[in-house]
C-alpha cells in the first residue's frame, strides 16, 4: 500500500487523476453533509440566477447559478454525481466481469462456444445501441437497477471481443502448455493463467467504457429513460439545460465540465494503473 502511493507520487498524471477521482468520490459520498441546498427544492423567485461568487458561504448563494426552476446547480451536480458515478461504476464492473469471462471462455474453448458467443456479439453490434437500450428499458421499466443492466449490456461485448482475441493468441503460448503439464485443470488455466494476462487490456477498456457509459447514461436520461426526475443526474441536467443555452449558459456548462473532468481523471488514473500493474514496466521505472 505504501509502495503504491510512493509510486503514485512519482507520476504527475497518475496523481492528478487519483486526486480528482478521490475528490469526486468523496463529494459523492459526503453530499448530504456538505451543507448544500436541497437539490430538488425549486425556487421560482430565483430562476436562472447567474453564478455569483460573492458571499459564497451565505445561504442563498449559488456559485454555479440556478436552473430554470431555481434549483442550485452545484448541489445538483454533487448529488447527481452519487447516482451517475454509482450507475457508471456498477455498469462498468458488471459489463467488465461478464465480458472478460465470456471472452476468455470463447477464446479458450474455441469451436462452437466461440462461434455462438461471437455471433451474439455480431448481432448486437448490428443493432443500434440506443435502440437496444430503449427496447430493454421499455420492457423492464425505468429504474436504477435496470439502467445498470442496460448499460452493462451495451458494454460487455467490447471486452468479450478484445479479450477473446488476446486469449486466442495466449492459449497457443508455451506457458499454457506447461500449465497443462503441471496438472492444471481448465478453470485453473482460465482464471489463474489467462485472466492475469488479460487484466491489462480489460483495465484499458474499462477506463474507456466508464467514459462512454457516463455519456450513454446522460443520453438515456436525456430521452427520459434514465434517472427519473426530480432526482438530479448529469445527463438529465444537460438535457434540460440545452434549451436555455443562449440565455443561461451555466445550466449546461457545469454538468458538462463535471462529466469532462470525471472522464479525464478516470482515464489518467486508468493509464497509470495499467502501467503500474504491468510487471515489465514496473521494474524499468
Amino acid at each position, binding site marked *: 500500500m505504501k509502495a503504491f502511493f510512493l509510486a503514485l507520487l512519482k507520476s504527475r498524471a497518475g496523481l492528478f487523476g487519483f486526486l480528482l477521482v478521490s475528490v469526486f468520490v468523496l463529494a459523492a459520498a459526503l453530499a448530504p453533509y456538505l451543507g448544500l441546498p436541497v437539490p430538488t427544492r425549486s425556487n421560482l423567485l430565483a430562476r436562472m440566477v447567474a453564478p455569483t461568487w460573492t458571499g459564497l458561504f451565505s445561504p442563498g448563494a449559488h456559485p454555479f447559478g440556478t436552473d430554470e426552476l431555481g434549483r442550485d446547480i452545484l448541489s445538483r451536480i454533487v448529488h447527481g454525481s452519487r447516482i451517475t458515478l454509482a450507475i457508471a461504476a456498477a455498469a462498468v464492473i458488471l459489463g467488465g466481469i461478464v465480458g472478460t469471462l465470456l471472452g476468455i471462455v470463447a477464446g479458450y474453448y474455441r469451436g462452437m462456444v466461440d462461434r455462438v458467443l461471437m455471433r451474439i456479439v455480431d448481432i448486437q453490434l448490428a443493432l443500434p445501441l440506443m435502440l437496444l437500450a430503449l427496447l430493454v428499458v421499455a420492457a423492464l421499466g425505468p429504474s436504477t437497477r435496470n439502467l445498470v443492466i442496460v448499460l452493462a449490456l451495451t458494454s460487455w461485448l467490447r471486452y468479450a471481443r478484445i479479450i477473446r482475441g488476446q486469449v486466442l493468441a495466449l492459449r497457443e*503460448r508455451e*506457458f499454457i*502448455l506447461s500449465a497443462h503439464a*503441471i*496438472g492444471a485443470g481448465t478453470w485453473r488455466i482460465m482464471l*489463474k493463467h489467462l485472466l*492475469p*494476462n488479460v487484466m491489462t487490456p480489460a483495465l484499458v477498456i474499462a477506463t474507456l467504457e466508464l467514459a462512454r457509459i457516463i455519456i450513454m447514461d446522460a443520453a438515456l436520461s436525456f430521452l427520459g429513460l434514465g434517472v427519473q426526475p426530480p432526482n438530479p443526474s448529469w445527463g438529465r441536467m444537460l438535457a434540460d439545460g440545452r434549451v436555455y443555452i443562449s440565455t443561461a449558459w451555466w445550466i449546461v456548462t457545469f454538468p458538462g465540465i463535471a462529466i469532462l473532468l470525471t472522464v479525464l481523471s478516470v482515464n489518467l488514473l486508468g493509464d497509470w494503473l495499467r502501467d503500474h500493474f504491468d*510487471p515489465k514496466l514496473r*521494474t524499468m521505472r
Partner: protein
Amino acid sequence: MAPLLEVRNLTVAFDTPAGTVHAVNDVSYSLEEGETLGIVGESGSGKSVHALSMVGLIATPPGRIVSGEVLFNGRDLLALSQRELFEVRGKEIGFVFQDPMTSLNPVLTIERQIAEPLRRHFGMSASQARTRVVELLELVGIPDAARRARQYPHEFSGGMRQRVMIAIGISCNPKLLIADEATTALDVTVQAQILDLVRDLKKKIGTTVIWITHDMGVVAGLADTVQVMYGGRIMERGPVRAVFHDPRNAYTWGLLKSLPHGGRRGVTRLYQIPGNPPDLTKEPIGDPFAPRNPFATERCRIETPPLGEVEGSVAGHKAAAWYDLRAELAATQVQP
C-alpha cells in the same frame, strides 16, 4: 522389477485438411527407474508428439491416439480419464519445455509458478509452498533465492529461466521428468551449465529422465540409452556407447557423420543426409528413411523393418534395418 515406463505400439495421428499425418507409428520401448533416455531425431520425427501424447497433452482433435498402451508404474496412462491425468501430470511426470522465454507466464511471479504444482497436488499452504520454492530454487542453482522468487520471468536470463522451469518440473518429486528440447533455445555455454545441473540433480534426487533433443552431442553427454527416431518410428536404440561407436541404422550413421569433429581430420565438409524429411501424410509403409538411404534395398521400400537386437553388439542394442550397415560400410570403406 517391472520397468517404470513401458510404451507399447503407440500410434498417434493428426487429421489435418491436407490428410492424415502419421506422426508416431507403432513405437514401443521401456524405461527402467533411474535411467536417462535420450531421444534424438529431426523435426517431425515424432519425438515430442509421442511424449506429449502419453499424458494427454496433444489437442484432440486434430490429434488422435490410434492405438497403443503407455504403462507407467503398471497403469495404462492412455486409459485414464482427464481428471486422473491431472493427478499424473506435474506430480508423477514433470515436464520441461523448449523455450524458457515463453514457457513461463509473464504476469505471475516465479514463486507463484513454482508453487502452483505444490499447492495443486500437495495442497500446501502459501507459506509451506514458499519454503519449498526457496529450497527448489537453491537446488537448481539460483542464488539469492528468497528475493529472486518474488521476481517476474522477464527479470531472469534465459539460462536462469530454464533453471526455474526445471524447478517447476521437479517440484513434486516426479518419478519421471520429460525434457522436450530443454536446452535447444540456449546458447552453448548456458546449455553446458544446464546439462551439468541435470546430471547433478539426477545424483541428488534420482529421477528417471527422458531427454528429447535433436543434438547428438547432448545425448552423448547425458544419457544412458539413446533412441533415434525418424518418421514417427524408432530406428535404433541402445546404450549410448554402442550406438555411437557401432551404428546399425543408416539414419543414425548419417546423423553421427554430420556432426562436426573439431578439425581432427583437417578441414572436411560436413556430411549431409540427402533428400528431405518424409511426407507424413503418406501411408507409413516400408522403412521411412529408405528414400534418403544410399544403402536401401528393394525390401526397405515395401516392408517395414522390425526393431530387433543387432548381432555382434551389446545387449539392448536394437536397430530397424533390412540391410547390414556394418557390411555395407566395410565394402565402401566409409567410416562414421
